């Protein structure tokens, strides 16, 4: 049943992402794309939507995918799924969090998880970069040879701004304006 599949898929996503923000991305990519619920382009587009709206990426993407796949009931199931693992775990450790924090097992696991997340996000950079520079989709036919230069230009500008700690929403808006301008000039 689709509702149970949504709940279970997002439960897995919620249970296996450590550290906030983009740590979620590699897992969302693999799980959501495996079901054919979104393609790489949809996911990258949705990151922009998520950065420009309140709430974390995980919850936003769960709500969105759930709605797309199975309506409002689907979005409730997917959101519940992504929330439940951390909800349950926090409830369990809320009473003894000092012990938990200093536990050797947790520290040991984290010493492997932290670098793993870096490697996984590196893999996401590859998959998103592929989508930006060599998209197979037909929706970007104007973005062929000239488009590669435009994307590279926007990437460089956005990189400089983001390392100068400009707010992500401003970077997204500026990228949109540059994309529109390049589209009409081409």
């Amino acid at each position, binding site marked *: 049943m689709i509702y149970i599949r949504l709940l279970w898929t997002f439960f897995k996503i919620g*249970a*296996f992402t*450590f550290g*906030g*923000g*983009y740590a979620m*991305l590699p*897992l969302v990519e*693999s799980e959501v794309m495996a079901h054919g619920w979104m393609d790489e*382009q949809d996911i*990258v*587009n949705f990151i922009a939507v998520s*950065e420009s*709206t*309140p*709430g*974390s*990426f995980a*919850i936003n993407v769960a709500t*969105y995918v759930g*709605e*797309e796949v199975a309506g409002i009931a689907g979005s409730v199931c997917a959101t519940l799924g*992504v*929330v439940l693992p*951390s*909800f349950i*775990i*926090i409830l369990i450790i809320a009473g003894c*969090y000092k012990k938990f*924090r200093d536990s050797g097992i947790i520290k*040991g696991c*984290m*010493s*492997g*998880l*932290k*670098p*793993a*997340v*870096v490697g*996984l996000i590196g*893999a996401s*950079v590859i998959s*998103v970069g592929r989508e*930006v520079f060599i998209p197979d989709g037909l929706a970007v036919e104007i973005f062929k040879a000239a488009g590669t230069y*435009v*994307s*590279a230009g926007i990437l460089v500008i956005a990189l400089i701004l*983001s390392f100068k700690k400009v707010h*992500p*929403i401003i*970077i*997204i808006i*500026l*990228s*949109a*304006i540059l*994309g529109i301008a390049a*589209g*009409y000039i081409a």
Partner: protein
Amino acid sequence: MKENEKKSRILLQLFITFMKIGTFTFGGGYAMIPLIQRETVVKRKWVDDEDILNIVAIAESTPGPIAINTSTFVGYRVGGFWGAVVGTAGMILPSFVIILAISFVLKRFQDIQIVKYAFNGIRAGVLALIIRALWLMYKNVKKSAVTYIVMAAAFVLCAFADVNVIIVIACCALFGLITSYIKTGKEKQNI
């Protein structure tokens, strides 16, 4: 009776406070910590600054989004199980409603030419945001032979070998656990 009234007032306060936090933190993640601190420590005095530091530490070592970890934790401390439920529900509700509304229009707008152009630009911008996130996380990792191996292995397995991400994550956690036990074992031998 009075006890009940007091309890339901606290639950309502929890719900409203976390709804406020959920509404005003764009992008999520660590960006919400300052607002959480202001609302729960300074304004409501539900928890103290040390609790917030602990929450961040716990959020880093438990799965799931930081927003959920925090709202569940503070909710539980203030109002028990139902406090956790109400706090978490308040945190989720704003983004849930907004994304539902957006999902109804996004599909319709996506086929308009100008929106397509905009998203062509936006995807390059998003790539920059991910690269920056990657850099920040890389800086935060303690550098050693083990961490470089894990980073490289996770990267290659996921980017080029198409191994299931959950398996990669589980293996890296296990690897970290084993190497840290070997390390502490050696230290004990040296003493």
